[in-house]
C-alpha cells in the first residue's frame, strides 16, 4: 500500500481501516473492545467518544454473535474520518429482506435495548442484507 493509497483508504484521518473477522462467540466481545481501543489511539478520542465507539461496536458485535450459529464468522470494519468513526458489522444470514430496527424497549424491560443504544450514540444506523449477510452500519460522531 502506497502512502497515498493509505490516506485515501483512511477517510482523511490518516488511520488505516480496522478490519477483523472473528468467530461468533460471546468471548470475543472484550477482545474486540480492546482491539478497537488500540485502533482508535491515534485519533486521541476523549473518554466519552472512546466509550461511545466501544459501546456501539460491542452492541453490534453482540447482536451479530447472537444471530450467528457457533463457528460462523462475524466481520468488523471501522474507518475513521475527522468527525466520525464509521462502523460496519456483518454476519451470515438466511434473510432476504431488509431487517427492521426494533423500537426502544420499555425502560425496565429486562433486555432489548442494544440497538436503541447504538442509535442514540450514532447516526445513520442501517441494517441491510448483502449477499446473504446482515450488515449493520452506522457513524459514531467524534470531536474533531
Amino acid at each position, binding site marked *: 500500500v502506497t502512502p497515498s493509497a493509505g490516506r485515501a483508504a483512511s477517510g482523511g484521518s490518516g488511520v488505516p481501516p480496522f478490519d477483523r473477522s472473528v468467530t461468533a462467540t460471546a468471548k470475543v466481545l472484550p477482545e474486540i*473492545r480492546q482491539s478497537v*481501543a488500540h485502533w482508535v489511539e491515534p485519533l486521541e478520542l476523549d473518554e466519552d467518544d472512546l466509550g461511545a465507539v466501544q459501546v456501539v461496536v460491542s452492541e453490534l458485535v453482540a447482536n451479530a454473535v447472537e444471530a450467528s450459529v457457533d463457528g460462523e464468522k462475524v466481520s468488523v470494519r471501522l474507518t475513521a474520518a475527522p468527525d466520525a468513526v464509521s462502523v460496519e458489522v456483518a454476519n451470515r444470514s438466511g434473510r432476504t429482506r431488509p431487517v427492521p430496527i426494533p423500537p426502544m424497549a420499555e425502560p425496565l424491560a429486562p433486555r432489548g435495548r442494544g440497538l436503541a443504544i447504538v442509535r442514540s450514540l450514532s447516526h445513520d444506523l442501517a441494517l441491510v442484507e448483502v449477499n446473504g449477510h446482515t450488515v449493520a452500519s452506522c457513524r459514531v460522531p467524534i470531536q474533531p
Partner: protein
Amino acid sequence: VAGTGSTSAQGGDSGSTPAAPPDPDPADGRAEDDGSAREPGAPLPLVVEAVDGAPRPVLKLRGDLDQTGAPVLTRAVDALPSLSDGLALDFDQVPFVDSSGLSALIHVIRRAAADGAVLTIQRPNPLLVRLLETTGVDVHLVIEPAPRGDGA
C-alpha cells in the same frame, strides 16, 4: 461466590480474597489494579465489594459491567438479604457498561423496588449517564455525582 455477610464476587478466577473484609482504602497497595495503570480499553473482569462503615449498604464495583460482569453484579446483589435500607452502587472504577450491564442494573432496580427502596448510582462516568438517560432508566434510580479526586 458471594457471601451474605461481606459481599464479594468477581468475574475472573484469581486474585481475590472473598472472605476478607473490604480494604478501607482501596487505592492503598493496589496501584497495579486500580484501572489507571491498565492499558486503555483492556478488559477488566468485574469485582464487587461491600463497603464497610457506610450509612447505608454500598457495593463498590471495579471493572467492566458487560456480558461477563453483569451476572457478577446480580449475584452480589442477590446475596444481600434485603435492600430495604436502600443500596448504592459505586461506579467510580467502572470504565465500561453495555446493554447487558444495563440489564443487570434493571434487575437491581426491580429488586430494590420490591423491598420498597430506590437504587443509587454513585460516580458514574459520562457515558453511563448518557446510556441511562437514553434508555429512560435514569428516572428509576438516583444518580449521585460525587466530587472527583477524593483519593479513591
